[in-house]
Every structure is written in structure tokens, then in C-alpha cells.
């Protein structure tokens, strides 16, 4: 491999890595607030890409119907549980959040689908269309078992991924899609040519990471989310509702996932089941960062992107094997590092 190819692979690796960064940061956010390792973020990204492609073809995206159906189930569960606990006065609010809001979203997307909108509008629609899914699925799937172990929650998350991939096949079909390029521009750094699309991905990942950092450090809501992650009981004692914090976390995570989906759709062919590897690679990045540390996670996700890029040059069929094999020493090192600091964490 000569230097040119090495540079090319590096650019490629950083680009994929940047996509993983967005997904992995969302995963860490969800994990710290709700203890769920939300593998299906890959599917959320894929749904956003497939929705965008449907909008480009002026089809009604399957997401609209899916969101409506999921909202109906979530509303039914929420209202039943409220009535069972004698909280009838909270029902109107639940109807607004679990039914009216998602229906408004899916209705808008459905109504907008036949028209030829400019690209930014299409992208915004595709992102908004998938936002309600994760919070609603949280209500349906995870909240009834909120006190379960991390392992059980993760098994449920993996099962949820397979369900979502199946539903994706139903809603969008088996065909792979590639959306229109976001930009045709190209930049040159020295003698390295970088496509505008690549630059956009990297800039988006960096700026959303920065936004998230500002959100956590400078807003009361951000601090409340962080507080829920640090001490759930303490948070409840200052009237921070962990379920609501979870919903906000799922919304932010979905936003990041949807953005990453829209960003990669023009450069990679996306299938209904592409979400699994996306989610898994992001997960590996998050693990390298220790699952609780944002800068570490960002670095880990970049590393996974680079590793995958070089690995696919040497042997594309062994790309996944190489990435996951690299995880072993990291996990070993992590487990050694954590057994040493366990006593300090224990209060």
C-alpha cells in the first residue's frame, strides 16, 4: 500500500467513523439515562435514509403508517396504565404527547410525500418522520421492564432490532437505495481530493458533538439529563422524572441517528437491514469509550471507522472479523482498568 492509498483509506475511515460517532454518542446518551444499550439506532438511521429515498421518488414513505401504528399502541398502554393507577387527570396530556404529536408528524410527512420539495425540506421531513419512533418504542418495550438488568434490556434491544429490520422490509421493500448527493463540491488538501459529501459528514459529526456538549453544560434540561444518569434517585428527589429524561434522550439520540442516516445514504447503498452493522460498529466504538464517556466514545467510533477502512482494503470479506477481533484486547484492557478503580466508584 503506498502513501496515496493510505491517505485515501484514512479519509474514508474518518468519514465512516464520523457516522459511527453520531450513532455512538446517541447510544451512550441513552445508556447513561436509561441503562438500555439501544442497538436499534442503526435501524433508525436506516429508516431515515429509506424515508428520504421514498420522498425523492415521491412515494408515501412507510414510516408515516408505522409511526401512526406505534403511536396507537403506545397511547393504549399509557392510558391504560394511567387509568389503572387512578391518574385520569393525566390522560389528556398523555393523549397529546403519545397520540396527537406523533400523528401530526406522520400526517405531515404523508401529506408532503407527493410533492416535489427542495432537498433541504425533504431531508428535514425524513429526519422528523423517524424522531417519534424511538421514544414511542421506549414506552412500549422498555418502560414496562425498566428495572430489569442491563443484560435483559440489551437482549430486548437486539430483539427490537430484528423486529425493526423486518418491519423495514415490509415498509420499504428489499431494494437497496442511494439518495441524491447532498453536494457536488470537492475540496483539495495538498494533493488529497476530498469530496464535499465527506467533508459534510465530518463537519456534521463535529458540530453536533459540540452542540451536545453545550447542551449538557449550559442548559438546565441538559444538566437534568446528566443528573438522571449520575443518580436516578437523587434526580427524582429534585422532581426530574426519569421517564421524561429517557424520552428526551431517545429524541436526541434519534436526531443524531437520523442525521447520520441522511448523511451516509448518498455514499453507501442502504438496505432495510443495513442498520445492524451500523449499530454494531457504533456500539463497539461506544464500548471502547467505556459506554459512559463522550470524548472516549467519539475517539472509539473514529477508531472503528479507520480500522474498518484499512481492514476492507486488505480483505474486504474479513472487515467485520478484523474490527471485532480488535475489540478483544480493548475489552481485556478495560476489564483490568475497571477492576482497579471499582473500589473508588463504590460509595
Amino acid at each position: 500500500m503506498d502513501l496515496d492509498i493510505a491517505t485515501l483509506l484514512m479519509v474514508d475511515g474518518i468519514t465512516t467513523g464520523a457516522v459511527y460517532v453520531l450513532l455512538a454518542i446517541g447510544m451512550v446518551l441513552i445508556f447513561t439515562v436509561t441503562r438500555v444499550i439501544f442497538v436499534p439506532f442503526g435501524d433508525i438511521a436506516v429508516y431515515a435514509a429509506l424515508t428520504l429515498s421514498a420522498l425523492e421518488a415521491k412515494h408515501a414513505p412507510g414510516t408515516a403508517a408505522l409511526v401512526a401504528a406505534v403511536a396507537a399502541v403506545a397511547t393504549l398502554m399509557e392510558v391504560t396504565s394511567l387509568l389503572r393507577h387512578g391518574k385520569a387527570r393525566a390522560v389528556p396530556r398523555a393523549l397529546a404527547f403519545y397520540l396527537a404529536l406523533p400523528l401530526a408528524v406522520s400526517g405531515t410527512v404523508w401529506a408532503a410525500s407527493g410533492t416535489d420539495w427542495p432537498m433541504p425540506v425533504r431531508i428535514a421531513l425524513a429526519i422528523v418522520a423517524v424522531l417519534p419512533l424511538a421514544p414511542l418504542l421506549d414506552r412500549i418495550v422498555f418502560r414496562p421492564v425498566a428495572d430489569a438488568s442491563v443484560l435483559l434490556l440489551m437482549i430486548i434491544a437486539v430483539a427490537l432490532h430484528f423486529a425493526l429490520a423486518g418491519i423495514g422490509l415490509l415498509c420499504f421493500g428489499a431494494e437497496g437505495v442511494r439518495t441524491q448527493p447532498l453536494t457536488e463540491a470537492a475540496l483539495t488538501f495538498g494533493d488529497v481530493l476530498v469530496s464535499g459529501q465527506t467533508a459534510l459528514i465530518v463537519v456534521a459529526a463535529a458540530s453536533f458533538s459540540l452542540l451536545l456538549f453545550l447542551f449538557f453544560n449550559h442548559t438546565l434540561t441538559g444538566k437534568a439529563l446528566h443528573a438522571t444518569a449520575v443518580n436516578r434517585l437523587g434526580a427524582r428527589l429534585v422532581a426530574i422524572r426519569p421517564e421524561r429524561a429517557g424520552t428526551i434522550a431517545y429524541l436526541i439520540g434519534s436526531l443524531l441517528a437520523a442525521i447520520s442516516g441522511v448523511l451516509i445514504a448518498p455514499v453507501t447503498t442502504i438496505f432495510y437491514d443495513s442498520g445492524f452493522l451500523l449499530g454494531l460498529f457504533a456500539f463497539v466504538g461506544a464500548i471502547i469509550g467505556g459506554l459512559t464517556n463522550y470524548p472516549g466514545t467519539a475517539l472509539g467510533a473514529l477508531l472503528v471507522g479507520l480500522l474498518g477502512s484499512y481492514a476492507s482494503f486488505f480483505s474486504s470479506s474479513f472487515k467485520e472479523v478484523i474490527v471485532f477481533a480488535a475489540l478483544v484486547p480493548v475489552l481485556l484492557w478495560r476489564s483490568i482498568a475497571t477492576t482497579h478503580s471499582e473500589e473508588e466508584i463504590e460509595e
Partner: protein
Amino acid sequence: MPLLEIERLEVSYGRIRAVQGVSLTVEAGQIATVIGPNGAGKTSMLSAVMGLCPARGRVAYDGMDLRDMDVEERVERGLCLVPERRELFGEMSVADNLLLGSFPRRPARAVIDRGLEEVFARFPRLKERRTQRADTLSGGERQMLALGRALMSKPRLLMLDEPSLGLAPIVVREIFVIIAALREAGVSILLVEQNARAALQTADVGFVLETGELVSQGPAAALLDDPRLIATYLGGAEPLPIPVRSKSSTHSIVDMS
């Protein structure tokens, strides 16, 4: 109308009956104290009032039955608990912990800043440590932070679970001075304490809890003179005999734990 009314409260953990039919009331503007030995059910009682554990019986706050109200709503209505374990946000700064204390009311920035100034005036130590992480504070500072965070929500009824736990005598005095000052500021207080003498000296009314049942109650001053209480909780008329290190031996016979 009493601010807090507990009627026939029962808390059980499986077969363990931690609280067995306790009834008590706290009037607005009062400090009420609950004393009792370890395992008497004091913490369980506070948890039940806060809605943190399932319980039977009736709890009314400000005339409202609390049964269908979740913890967060109780806090929003001015019922505030400083728990035995403090439950601070360890990896966040002192200032952020205090800021989050104001979350139940979500007030404007100016109101938050005024609240912060008030807390810093009461606890100058916290002002010095405002950027320090909460989990690096000393025990006394943590206690101050827990109290400060509670005050940021401007509670009407403040429930304190052993605020003097593990503190040096001089800090204990400070804490009780602050508790008395809070009553002057219009906060009603339900105080659970092992430090029975100091608690009864500060409080208006007292309740004695033993193995889940109230065995005695009355004006705090009267309880301080009760011979049975003097014998069991107030350390008798004389200080407890403390084993002394013998001069000749090199190791201490005083149990340092």
C-alpha cells in the same frame, strides 16, 4: 389544618414490618422530630411519606391525599426529603447540584441566582467550593450541600433524615442552628435524628419510634424531662463511661470504629 398528617402508616419489606400503624401530624411552622434506635423504621417512614416505597395507611399533605401522587409531583408541591444517603450528583459540581435543586420550580434565572446567594450566605463553605465535584466534598460539606440543594426548591415541608450523621460536634451544632433558622424563615421540618438531645432541644414536638411503633410523643420540652427517655435515649443524667487507654499498654482498648 396540619401540614402533614400520617394515619396508621404501615410499611413492610416482605415479612419484615418496618412501620406498624404510625399516626402523627406536623403543624405548619413547626419542627417535629422523630427519634428512635437503629432499625426502628424512621427512614422507612420518611420514604413512605415521599412515595419512594409502597405503604398502607393515609398520608395527607396540605389537605391533599398523597396516594396517587408520584414522588416528583410531591416535590413540586413543596415536600422535600434530604435522605440518609444524601443522593447528591457526585460527578457534578457543587454549583450544578444547587442549580438542579431549583428544578422542581423551574424558576427564572434571576430567581435561581437569588436562591443561590441565599444558600451561599447560609453555607459560606459551599461558595468556596462551588466548582468542586460533589463526590470530593467532606462529609460535613456534603451534608451542607444536601441541605442547600433542598433549600433551592423552596420547600414548605423539609424532611431531614439524620442531618447530623457522622459530623463533628461543632458542625452538628451549626446544622441545628441552621435548622432552627429555617423554621424562622417559615419552613416546617420533620427531623429524624439519632442525636436525640439536640433534636428535642431544637424541635417543638417529638415522637419516639421503637420497632415500627410510636411509644411516646408530646411537646419536645416534656420529652426532654421524661425519665424513661433520659435513661434510654438521652444518655442518662451522666455521660456514658468511656473506656480509657491504659497508660502502660501501647494499643488502645477504645474501639476506634
